[in-house]
C-alpha cells in the first residue's frame, strides 16, 4: 500500500501550503497535485526522475515536520472538511482498488497512457529518453509522472495504483470545489458527494460497462483540473498573489496533461481574467500592486505559467528525439496547429468554403442536440441545467458584486464553450481521419471535460450565493451581541438548491447508473483478452524470451488490439508487422495470407509469401518470432521452416499446444526457426 504514502505526501504538502499561504486546506491538495506534476516533469526532462522522487518525499516530510513544529496541537485547526474528505476518500479508493485489482482495458490506455505510466515506473526515465522497448509517445507527461510519484516506492508498475493515482487527482479537484463550505461541514460533505458523483453522471447510458474511475485517459483529469482551477479561483478566498499563482500552477498542470489541455487552460484563463477585470479589479492584490496593474501582472504571470510547460515539452521533444510535435495531420499529410486554426477560421467565416468543414459543422450541431453525453441525454439538456444553476446563483445573490460575478462568468463560460466546441469542430475536420470524423469518434469523451468543469464552477458560484452573506451575518451577530439578526431568505434558498442538486445527482446516478458493471464491480469477462496475452507472454518468457530480443509477432486475425497488448506486456522489442507494398514501414495489424488469395475474413489481410516475410524480417533486424495465433496458411507455407514443423499447432485458429517462441537462424536469404536453447519445451 505504498500508494498511501503518495497520498500522504500530497496531504503533507497541502497542509504546509495551507499554513504558509493562510489558505483553506480544502484548496491546497489541488495545488499540491499540480506542483507534483510540474516538479516531476521538470526533473524528468533532465533525466532526474529518481532524484525528484526522493527529494519530493523528503521535502513533503520536512514540510509536514515544519507545520507540526510550528503549529503543534493547533495543526488540527488547519484541517478543513474538504481536506479531510480528500484524505479519507483517497484512502477509500486506494483500498477499493487494492482489493478489486482492476485492469486497464481500453485501446488508448495501451497505445498511450498506460504504456507511458509503465515506462516511467519500470525505467525511472521519461518515455522520451527511456531505454525501453515499450512504444514511446509524444504526449505531455503530466499523468505518467503523477502516477510515478504515487507508486514511487513499489517495484515495477501496477495498474490498480495507476487508477488510484487518477482518483487522487479527481479528489483533490473536488475538494477544492468544497472550499466555501469549510465552516459548514455537513454542506461540505454533501457538496463533495455531489462532485464525486459527477464522473459517474458524465458517461452516456449506452449499456456498456461504466468506465468512470476505471478509465485511465487524460480526458477526466483534464476535466477536473479545468473545473478545479475555476473552483480554486472562485472559492479560494481573497484574490491575492498566493491564490492567483496557485491557479496559474493548476493551469500549467492542465496544459501538461495533453495538448487539448492547453485549449482548456486558455479558456479557464480567459474566464478568470475576465472575472478579475470586471469584478475584482478594486479588491485584488498582487505582490503589493493594486487595481489595473495588479490585474495585468496577475494575468500575465498566469498566462506565462500555463504556456511554459507546453513550450518546454515541445522544446524537450525536439532536443531529445527530434520529434516535431507541431505536425498534427492525419494519414501522412502534414499540418501545423496554426494552419489548422487558420483553415478553420477561414472556413468558419466563409472566406474559404470547405465541404468537409460544413459537413462536420452540421454533424456537430446535431450531436449537440441529440448525442448523449451524460446519463440524462444530450448536451442541449445539460446546457439548460447549467444555465439554471447559474440563474439560481444570480437570483439568490444578495450582493451586487456577486450578481455581476455570476453574469460575467455566465457570459464568458458560454463563449468559452462555443470556442471549445468550434475548436473540436476544427480537430474533427482537419486532424481526424475521415472515417473517425464521419462518426465523430469519441465525441462524448472530448466534450465532457468542458461540461464537468463548467458544472463544478457553477456549483461553486451557487455556494457563494448561499454562504458569503451568511458568514457576514454571523460576524455581525457576534459583534452586536444577540441583537436578533434574521438570516436573509435568498442565501437560505441558494443553500437549499445546492443541497437539492446534490440529492438529485445522487438519485439520478442511482436511477440511471450502471450498478452491474462499474469501478466497484467489474466483470472478469472484461479481462479475458488481457489475461490471455499475459499468459502467452509468460510462456514465451519460459521458452527463452529475453529483453534484448527483437520479436516479430504472428497473430492472425488481429485488428491491432492484441498487437498493442503484446507491446505493453513484453520487455523485448516488438517490431511492426509486415504491411505489404502499401505500408512498407510496417503496420500494427496484418494477417498474412497467401499471395493471390482473398482475405479469409480477416480485417487486415496482407498477401505475403515466406520469402517476402524473410526479407522483411531481415530488414527489420528481427531475432525471434512469437506465435500467438496461427492458421492453415501459416502452418502449410511456413511450417517447413520451423525445426519442429509447427507440431502441435492446428489450422483452426485455436491454440491447443505447440511451441510459441523461436529464434531465427539465417541460411542465406532463408530464415529457419528453432526453439531457443535452454528455454522450456512446449
Amino acid at each position: 500500500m505504498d500508494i498511501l504514502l503518495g497520498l500522504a505526501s500530497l496531504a503533507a504538502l497541502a497542509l504546509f501550503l495551507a499554513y504558509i499561504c493562510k489558505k483553506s486546506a480544502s484548496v491546497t491538495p489541488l495545488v499540491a497535485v499540480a506542483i507534483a506534476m510540474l516538479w516531476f516533469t521538470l526533473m524528468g526532462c533532465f533525466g532526474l526522475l529518481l532524484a525528484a522522487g526522493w527529494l519530493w518525499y523528503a521535502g513533503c516530510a520536512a514540510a509536514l515536520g515544519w507545520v507540526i513544529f510550528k503549529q503543534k496541537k493547533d495543526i488540527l485547526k488547519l484541517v478543513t472538511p474538504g481536506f479531510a474528505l480528500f484524505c479519507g476518500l483517497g484512502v477509500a479508493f486506494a483500498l477499493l482498488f487494492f482489493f478489486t485489482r482492476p485492469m486497464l482495458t481500453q485501446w488508448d490506455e495501451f497505445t498511450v497512457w498506460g504504456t507511458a505510466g509503465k515506462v516511467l515506473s519500470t525505467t525511472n526515465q521519461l518515455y522520451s529518453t527511456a531505454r525501453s522497448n515499450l512504444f514511446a509517445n509524444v504526449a505531455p507527461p503530466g499523468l505518467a509522472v503523477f502516477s510515478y510519484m504515487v507508486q514511487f516506492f513499489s517495484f515495477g508498475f501496477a495498474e490498480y495504483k495507476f487508477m488510484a493515482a487518477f482518483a487522487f487527482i479527481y479528489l483533490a479537484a473536488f475538494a477544492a470545489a468544497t472550499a466555501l463550505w469549510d465552516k459548514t461541514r455537513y454542506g461540505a460533505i454533501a457538496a463533495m458527494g455531489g462532485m464525486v458523483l459527477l464522473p459517474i453522471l458524465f458517461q452516456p447510458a449506452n449499456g456498456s460497462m461504466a468506465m468512470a474511475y476505471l478509465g485511465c485517459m487524460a480526458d477526466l483529469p483534464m476535466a477536473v483540473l479545468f473545473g478545479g482551477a475555476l473552483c480554486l479561483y472562485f472559492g479560494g478566498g481573497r484574490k491575492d498573489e498566493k491564490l492567483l499563482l496557485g491557479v496559474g500552477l493548476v493551469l500549467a498542470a492542465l496544459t501538461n496533461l495533453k495538448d487539448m489541455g492547453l485549449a482548456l487552460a486558455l479558456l479557464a484563463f480567459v474566464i478568470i481574467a475576465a472575472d478579475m477585470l470586471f469584478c475584482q479589479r478594486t479588491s485584488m492584490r498582487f505582490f503589493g500592486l493594486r487595481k489595473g496593474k495588479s490585474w495585468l501582472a496577475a494575468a500575465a504571470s498566469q498566462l506565462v505559467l500555463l504556456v511554459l510547460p507546453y513550450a518546454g515539452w515541445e522544446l524537450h521533444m525536439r532536443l531529445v528525439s527530434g520529434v516535431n510535435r507541431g505536425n498534427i495531420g492525419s494519414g501522412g499529410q502534414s499540418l501545423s496547429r496554426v494552419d489548422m486554426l487558420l483553415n478553420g477560421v477561414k472556413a468558419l467565416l466563409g472566406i474559404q468554403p470547405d465541404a468537409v468543414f460544413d459537413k462536420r459543422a452540421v454533424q456537430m450541431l446535431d450531436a449537440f442536440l441529440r448525442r448523449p453525453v451524460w446519463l440524462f441525454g444530450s448536451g442541449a439538456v445539460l446546457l439548460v441545467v447549467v444555465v439554471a444553476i447559474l440563474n439560481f446563483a444570480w437570483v439568490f445573490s444578495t450582493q451586487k458584486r456577486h450578481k455581476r460575478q455570476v453574469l460575467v462568468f455566465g457570459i464568458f463560460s458560454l463563449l468559452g464553450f462555443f470556442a471549445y466546441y468550434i475548436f473540436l469542430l476544427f480537430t474533427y475536420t482537419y486532424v481526424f481521419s475521415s472515417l473517425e470524423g464521419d462518426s465523430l469518434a469519441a465525441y462524448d469523451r472530448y466534450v465532457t471535460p468542458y461540461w464537468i468543469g463548467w458544472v463544478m464552477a457553477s456549483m461553486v458560484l451557487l455556494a457563494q450565493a448561499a454562504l458569503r452573506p451568511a458568514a457576514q451575518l454571523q460576524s455581525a451577530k457576534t459583534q452586536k451581541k444577540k441583537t436578533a439578526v434574521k438570516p436573509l431568505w435568498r442565501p437560505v434558498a441558494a443553500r437549499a438548491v445546492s443541497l437539492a442538486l446534490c440529492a438529485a445527482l445522487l438519485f439520478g446516478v442511482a436511477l440511471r447508473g450502471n450498478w452491474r458493471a462499474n469501478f466497484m464491480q467489474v466483470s472478469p469477462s472484461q479481462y479475458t483478452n488481457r489475461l490471455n496475452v499475459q499468459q502467452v507472454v509468460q510462456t514465451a518468457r519460459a521458452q527463452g524470451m529475453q529483453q534484448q530480443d527483437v520479436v516479430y509477432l504472428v497473430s492472425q486475425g488481429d485488428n491491432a488490439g492484441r498487437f498493442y497488448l503484446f507491446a505493453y506486456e513484453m520487455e523485448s522489442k516488438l517490431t511492426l508487422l509486415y504491411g505489404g507494398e502499401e505500408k512498407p514501414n510496417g503496420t500494427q495489424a496484418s494477417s498474412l495470407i497467401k499471395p493471390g488469395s482473398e482475405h479469409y475474413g480477416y480485417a487486415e489481410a496482407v498477401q505475403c509469401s515466406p520469402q517476402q516475410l524473410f526479407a522483411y524480417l531481415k530488414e527489420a533486424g528481427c531475432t525471434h518470432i512469437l506465435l500467438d495465433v496461427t492458421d492453415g496458411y501459416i502452418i502449410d507455407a511456413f511450417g517447413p521452416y520451423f525445426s519442429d514443423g509447427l507440431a502441435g499447432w492446428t489450422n483452426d485458429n485455436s491454440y491447443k499446444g505447440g511451441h510459441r517462441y523461436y529464434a531465427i537462424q539465417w541460411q542465406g536469404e532463408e530464415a529457419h526457426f528453432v526453439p531457443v536453447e535452454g528455454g522450456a519445451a512446449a
Partner: protein
Amino acid sequence: MSKKKKKHSGAKQSAPREKAWKLPLICYIVALGLYLLGCTYSFVQDTSRIYSGAIVRQAYKLEDLALESIEQLADENGMQRFVSTDDDPKILYYSLQGTYITRVGFNATSNKPGGEMVLYYTTSSAQGLKFTDRQKVWAQQYADGSWYFDLGGKKVYGLRLDPDTTGGVVWTVKELMFNAPKPFGAYYAPNAQPMFLLLLLPGLAAAGIQEGRRIWRLAKAAR
C-alpha cells in the same frame, strides 16, 4: 485565565459534537441493518421458493434453446461444443411464463478469449424478446473459472446469453444451468461494491439530513 477560557470553550464545542455523532451512527447502523436484512430476505425468499417448487434447478442442452450466430459442433468427450460465427452470438431462452431465476451457471471454456460476457433478461411477457441494456447482468466467475450470472430471484420471461464479443470462439459447455446452486455464504459474501457503498453512503446521507435540518431552521428564521 486564558487557558481556563480555552478549556471552557473547548468543552462547550465538544458538547454538540458528541450529539453530532449520533445521526451518522444511526445512519450507519440502519444501512448495515438494511443490507443484512436484504441479504437475509433474498436467502429466505429463494429457499422458500425452492421448497415450494417455484424455483426449479434445471440444466439445459443447446438444442433446448434457440441459437443465433452460433453453430453447434460435434460433441467432444460427452460435452457439447459450439462456435460463435460473428461478434454478437446469442443463446436465447423464452418460456414466456415467468420463471423465477436466481443464478444462471455457465460452466464452459473457450479456445480463445471471448471478451465481455453478459446475460439479458425480460420481465414481462409483453416484452417478448425485446432485450434492452437496462436489463442486463455481467458475468462473474467462480474460482474454478466457470461463469455465473446473478439475477437475484427475478421473475423472468426471456433470457439471452451473449457468450462472447469476439466471434469465431469455440466453446465447450460442461453445463448450462438455470437456478444453479447458490451457497448460503454467497448471500452474505462481502463484495467490493456493497462494502464501498456501505462505507460512504450512510455518511453522505447523515450529512445531507443534517444540512437539510439546518436549512429548515434557517428558513424558519428567515425574513
